[in-house]
């Protein structure tokens, strides 16, 4: 065995040992990323062509007050979305973990079912519901709660709603995993030692399920920064996110180098968040496929 091993080491070229997965990762992820990194340091000529000469001006433009306010707007929306997702997903995941296997399956199906439809189509249905002539307004008018249709669509609230709607399963799944693993004996022990249910939740359940809350938050917060289509459909341009700016640089302004710099910045923020997550004891595996 040992002989054959050294034989292979000496005679087989390194390139043939690259697995298809590695090749796939290099071709479709590493190389494009490298390209983005390179052009983020380049300029453009008048015809929007990329000019390969080193410059930091794209990065300097990131500190423009307008861009900074868009960053802060994105972070606020992401934060709001994450908090609301935790509040909605926690009870959902808790019930799912403690109910009968049949109901658990049912809840899981209802959670995952919308995923079989394109999220843009699903967001359009929200527009039908929330628009000025949408069903919600019609209903409220009919029962006389309001006299004038409420402007619900194209607000920051609508963007957050869209984000929560799209990203909720990513919070439920990691939460369900940790809550499901929780030893029921710990609740009994806590109760046995004199803790009322609220205290048991605060001292036992919450700390032990915190890893799931962290993992879910990462899974929700990061996509939130980039889901420009949610902002487009639900916010209608009223609420600019980093993702919107990046998409516009590539698709409308044709300033790829500047868009690249914005994208690199987003990647750095993401990496920073993941770093904080792992530093505070989070495990990459708990995030699933990112």
């Amino acid at each position, binding site marked *: 065995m040992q002989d054959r091993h050294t034989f292979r080491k000496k005679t087989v070229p390194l390139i043939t040992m690259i697995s298809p997965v590695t090749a796939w990762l290099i071709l479709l992820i590493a190389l494009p990323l490298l390209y983005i990194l390179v052009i983020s340091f380049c300029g453009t000529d008048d015809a929007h062509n990329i000019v390969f000469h080193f410059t930091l001006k794209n990065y300097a433009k990131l500190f423009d007050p307008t861009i900074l306010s868009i960053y802060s707007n994105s972070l606020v929306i992401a934060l709001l979305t994450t908090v609301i997702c935790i509040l909605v997903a926690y009870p959902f995941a808790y019930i799912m973990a403690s109910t009968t296997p049949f109901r658990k399956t049912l809840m899981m199906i209802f959670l995952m079912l919308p995923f079989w439809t394109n999220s843009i189509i699903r967001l359009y249905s929200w527009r039908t519901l929330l628009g000025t002539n949408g069903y919600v307004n019609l209903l409220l008018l009919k029962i006389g709660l309001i006299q004038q249709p409420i402007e619900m669509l194209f607000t920051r609230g609508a963007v957050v709603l869209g984000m929560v709607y799209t990203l909720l399963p990513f919070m439920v799944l990691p939460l369900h995993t940790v809550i499901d693993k929780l*030893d029921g*004996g*710990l609740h*009994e*022990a*806590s*109760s*046995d*030692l*004199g*803790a*009322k249910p609220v*205290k048991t939740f605060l*001292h*036992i359940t919450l*700390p*032990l399920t915190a890893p799931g809350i962290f993992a879910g938050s990462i899974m929700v917060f990061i996509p939130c920064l980039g889901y420009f289509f949610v902002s487009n459909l639900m916010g209608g341009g009223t609420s600019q996110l980093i993702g919107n700016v990046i998409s516009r640089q590539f698709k409308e302004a044709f300033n790829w180098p500047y868009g690249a710099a914005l994208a690199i910045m987003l990647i750095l923020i993401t990496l920073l968040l993941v770093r904080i997550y792992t530093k505070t004891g989070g495990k990459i595996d708990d995030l699933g496929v990112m």
Partner: protein
Amino acid sequence: MAKAIVEIKNVNKFYGDNHVVKDLDMEIYEGEFLSILGPSGCGKTTTLRMIAGFEQQTDGVITVEGERVENKEPFERNVNTVFQSYALFPHMTVHDNVAYGLKMKKVKKAEIAGRVEDALSMVRLEGFGKRYPAQLSGGQRQRVAIARAIINNPRVLLLDEPLGALDMKLRKQMQIELKNLQKQLGITFVYVTHDQEEALTMSDRIAVMSGGVLEQIGTPAEIYEKPTTKFVADFIGETNLFEAVEAHVRDDGTVCLNAEAGELTGADPRFSAAELVYLSVRPEKTLASESPVTGFSLRGTVRENIYIGTVVKSTVVLQNGQEIRVSSIAGAPVPAAGSARYIHWNPGDAVIIHSKSNTILDLMDSLDLGAYVAGGA
């Protein structure tokens, strides 16, 4: 001793259609070490969990210190539990685990520190306060679980097979420590186990349960020497059990019985002619002689002798195929394998067990007709 601290009156517990505890009546005395012993599924853990408050009885009354507890949550009951799986809080240090109960009762911090130290030294875990449960061995975790319960000064400590996960040597050591701890604290221990040896060595009294029914409750000696049901005779220790019909009282006051294997003799103040009873004789009380003994007609052949240090265990096969176990002190003459022997005993050493009721169904059950019918169908 006779003052009851926990009273269980006519308690039933159903899980759906499953009747797991049947008409249970039991008194647990102040300061005693009571074991609830039985095979798995006998209802012993359910009984414990009903006292703790994790399960609600379907009907009947449970009182602790004279107060009915059915409407009290576990955190309102003055009892504490040591769980089989320990159920230590993994995110807390040993100190915080042990302090948890006091913290919930809002005891002052300075007092908590002192009492935690006392509790840890009581289970010989001084200096382990800063460790986490994952850094402890099984035995150490068990001690933390005990310290976490006793620090609350419960009137009754409930222990659910607490030594089940430990290896044999550690078990033996912990048995002695638990017994000493109970004496030292002077509180009531209710100890659930399926290990009869454990129950016999540790308990003041043992409650034997089977199929949700309390078979017998009494001191270890009573349980071993005077079993009142067939189940107890069979379950506790080794025994030779005969199904027999009481025939008549002899001139010397002993009772003559007829079993399938032959004629037997026992002593029975409750003699009633033609009643079907069980007769149980422990192997160490069973004798095998070379010549027939008056009152017995149990002839058999010695199949084997097994030497296990202090005693020799012989198996004698009777003519009807029943195997009789005989233990004799090592060094005493042992019958050679293959030789013929006559089984007998001192009539006073045999225990005669009367059936609780003599309905036809019980009779069929005991004669194993049920199995016969089922097999024929």
